[in-house]
């Protein structure tokens, strides 16, 4: 792999770590759900880097798009804050 | 020639067509599951002669294994497929007699049966994962269908543990794929000697966790009591008679055929006996009869897994036969218990032992059937359970665990106590009159007939189970019948 790509991947994996920590610590579910969408998006970029474009498209459409949608609809019912 | 793949294809077709039928008439969908399962049974029975030693190979996509997915049905799988479809047929008749439900319920039910039969028929590891997911997702849908607190709680726990478990199962499949370059069970079994031991151990433990959820192994069975208690009586029957049996099949296929008597099964030996003892003790404490039955079911599965793990000590066809007998006894006995408990309560969902007082007097048939179910689980003579329990004891002795026989008998005393307590309770005092519909009653009677027929006349079952055990035992025959003479 080109080292430039590797540096990009390194930067993205740092974002990944931050996003997972946000999911863990955030009391606001809206933030957590959006952070999980970011995780999915970064994962789909990783898939692209790993030469799996089919999976990248699917993950971007399903993981980052649709799952976020249904999670948000469920959050509307289940309450936005953890303490509810 | 009727290809057994139609069992899966036609079930799917029928499940997909239910919404279209529902648009025509509200009454049509409920007829679909019985018809579909009846067709499946006929297809299976028509293939009975073709399955002799080795496995019957059915390719998909017109390409030979291991390139494409194939179904592989040997006598062992055939027996389980027959069991699943028979119990499924009886339950589908039961749903026919129930009041009008959402048509989507029938789809879930049909797909649940489909998932279980797919697991016992497939010859491909990843395909078994897909069917496992179909089975799991449909079963937590079915558990939650009651939409009351208990069932939702059980369904959520089941979902959480099941999701992690099946993901680990997938990881196990991938590890095997990476080291053999194949996903076909027979092909992997052929290449197994080339795999280093450390990879075998890791993959084996991952599979154990994945399947352990289905077969209610000790640390992974936290979902089971709640799910059994929360679900409808018929769904509890389904959980104990179909879903855990598919899990047992998968465990046998993976640990015997693929891993060739996995040495880490010793873990299962201890976990199985722990499951057995803890669950039976927990059953002793219960005031809620349905929860008691659930714990008893977990205990029986623990005994089954214990016998199953004896294989690692001593590979003996008799032990394989015992596993099959125990599975059959558990399927019919527990199914009957859950159904007759439902009849005793008359659909009120009041399962506490005090509220059941006298219900056996007002509904004699259900009371008697409950007693029969309890007797077969306890292993009384003239019931099927007698033979399976005797075989279990002989198997334990053969594997050299003589001191454990005493333990099993001791735990059986607990069983006698807590079942006896319920039976005495339902036949004493005066209760409200409960009615049982004709169809409901006849389904329970059929379950009971199976138990008594097998108990009084055990020879055919024994020989059938023995043949299935031989098919499971001779793994080289299985491999060559799938992969050709390699």
């Amino acid at each position, binding site marked *: 792999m080109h080292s430039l790509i590797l540096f990009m991947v390194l930067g993205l994996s740092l974002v990944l770590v931050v996003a997972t920590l946000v999911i863990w610590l955030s009391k606001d579910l809206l933030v957590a759900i959006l952070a999980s969408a970011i995780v999915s998006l970064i994962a789909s970029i990783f898939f692209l880097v790993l030469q799996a*474009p*089919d999976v*990248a*498209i*699917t993950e*971007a*459409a*399903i993981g980052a*798009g*649709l799952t976020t*949608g*249904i999670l948000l*609809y*469920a959050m509307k*019912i289940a309450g936005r804050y953890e303490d509810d | 020639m009727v290809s057994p*793949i139609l069992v899966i*294809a036609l079930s*799917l*077709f029928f499940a*997909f*067509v*239910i*919404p*279209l039928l529902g*648009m025509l008439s509200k009454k049509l969908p409920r007829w679909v599951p019985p018809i579909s399962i009846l067709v499946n049974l006929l297809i299976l029975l028509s293939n009975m002669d073709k399955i002799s030693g080795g496995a019957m190979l*059915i390719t*998909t*996509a*017109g*390409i030979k294994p291991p*390139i*494409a*997915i194939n179904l592989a049905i040997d006598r062992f799988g055939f027996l389980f497929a027959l069991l699943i479809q028979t119990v499924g047929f009886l339950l589908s008749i039961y749903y026919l007699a129930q009041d009008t439900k*959402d048509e*989507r319920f029938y*789809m*879930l039910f049909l*797909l649940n049966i*489909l998932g279980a039969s797919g697991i016992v028929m497939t010859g*491909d590891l*990843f*395909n078994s994962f*897909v069917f496992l*997911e*179909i089975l799991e*997702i*449909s079963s937590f*849908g079915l558990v*939650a269908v009651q*939409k009351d607190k208990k069932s939702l709680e059980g369904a959520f726990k089941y979902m959480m543990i099941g999701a992690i478990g099946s993901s680990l199962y997938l990881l196990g499949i991938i590890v095997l794929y*990476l*080291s053999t*370059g*194949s*996903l076909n069970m027979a*092909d992997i079994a052929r290449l197994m000697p080339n795999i*280093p031991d*450390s*990879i075998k151990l*890791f993959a084996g433990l991952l599979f154990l966790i994945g399947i352990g959820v289905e077969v209610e192994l000790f640390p992974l069975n936290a979902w089971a009591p709640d799910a059994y208690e929360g679900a409808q009586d018929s769904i509890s029957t389904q959980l104990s008679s179909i879903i855990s049996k598919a899990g047992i099949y998968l465990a046998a296929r993976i640990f015997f055929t693929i891993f060739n008597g996995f040495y880490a099964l010793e873990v299962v030996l201890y976990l199985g006996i722990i499951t057995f003892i803890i669950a039976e003790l927990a059953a002793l404490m219960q005031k809620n009869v349905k929860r008691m039955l659930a714990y008893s079911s977990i205990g029986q599965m623990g005994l089954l897994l214990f016998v199953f793990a004896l294989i690692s000590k001593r590979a003996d066809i008799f032990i394989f036969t015992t596993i099959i007998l125990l599975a059959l006894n558990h399927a019919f006995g527990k199914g009957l218990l859950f159904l007759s408990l439902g009849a005793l309560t008359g659909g009120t969902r009041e399962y506490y032992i005090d509220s059941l007082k006298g219900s056996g007097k007002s509904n004699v048939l259900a009371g008697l059937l409950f007693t029969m179910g309890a007797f077969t689980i306890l292993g009384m003579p003239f019931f099927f359970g007698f033979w399976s329990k005797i075989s279990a004891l002989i198997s334990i002795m053969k594997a050299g665990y003589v001191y454990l026989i005493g333990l099993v008998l001791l735990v059986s005393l607990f069983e006698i106590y807590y079942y006896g307590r319920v039976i005495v309770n339902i036949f004493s005092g005066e209760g409200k009159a409960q009615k049982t519909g004709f169809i409901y009653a006849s389904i329970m009677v059929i379950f009971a007939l199976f138990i008594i027929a097998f108990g009084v006349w055990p020879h055919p079952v024994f020989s059938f189970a023995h043949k299935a055990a031989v098919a499971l035992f001779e793994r080289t025959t299985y491999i060559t019948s799938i992969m050709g003479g390699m």
Partner: protein
Amino acid sequence: MIRKIVAFIFAFYFGFILYSFIYTHFPFGERPLKGVAAHYVEKGVQEEGATNIVTSIVTLYRGFDTLGEVTVLFLAATGLGLLLAGWKEEEKEKPEPTLIMETTTKYLFPLVLLFGSYIFIHGHLTPGGGFPAGVVIATGYFMMFIAQKEFKPSEYLLSATESFAGTLYVITGLLGLALAFSFLANVAPLGVPNTVFSAGIIPIIYIIIGFKVGSEMTGILQHMKEV
């Protein structure tokens, strides 16, 4: 607090074992293609006529899995519908979408649908295929759900599309059983690789999957929206 510590130890121990295991046994990027993968790469195009190998694996070599996968989605859609049926609906204040959103989505919607159809029709040539295509179509509907107040696709039509596509999929498989004695066999002519009309039944299956996944996902979103 104790639960947190136990969970922490458990999870990180699991991670440590997993990482050390995979790092010693499967070094990154050094595993040569072997077994079935080598066969797919070498013979895949001649056998099935699709230049996208992943597509031919998904729809043909492992097509039975894909049928199961479609079933899982179907199951999720029906189960969700069953669980959420009969929800006590209460009138809620819905925020008014702005004029800009309303107008743009109205014109964007057909384009999204077109894009989805493009993905599933070219599934055997380019990355993508039926599943992402169906989801793209569903996200088009999702956009409309958010932005348009009165937008409501017919439930009758959605459910009919769903089960019609499902039955068609099984029938395609049975056609293989009837003509080539094997379920889901590639019975249609292969054609010239790298053109739209090639690869036998792959485009047909992907079109069916596209419709099915699209209608199922839209159904899921609609159920979630209505409660």
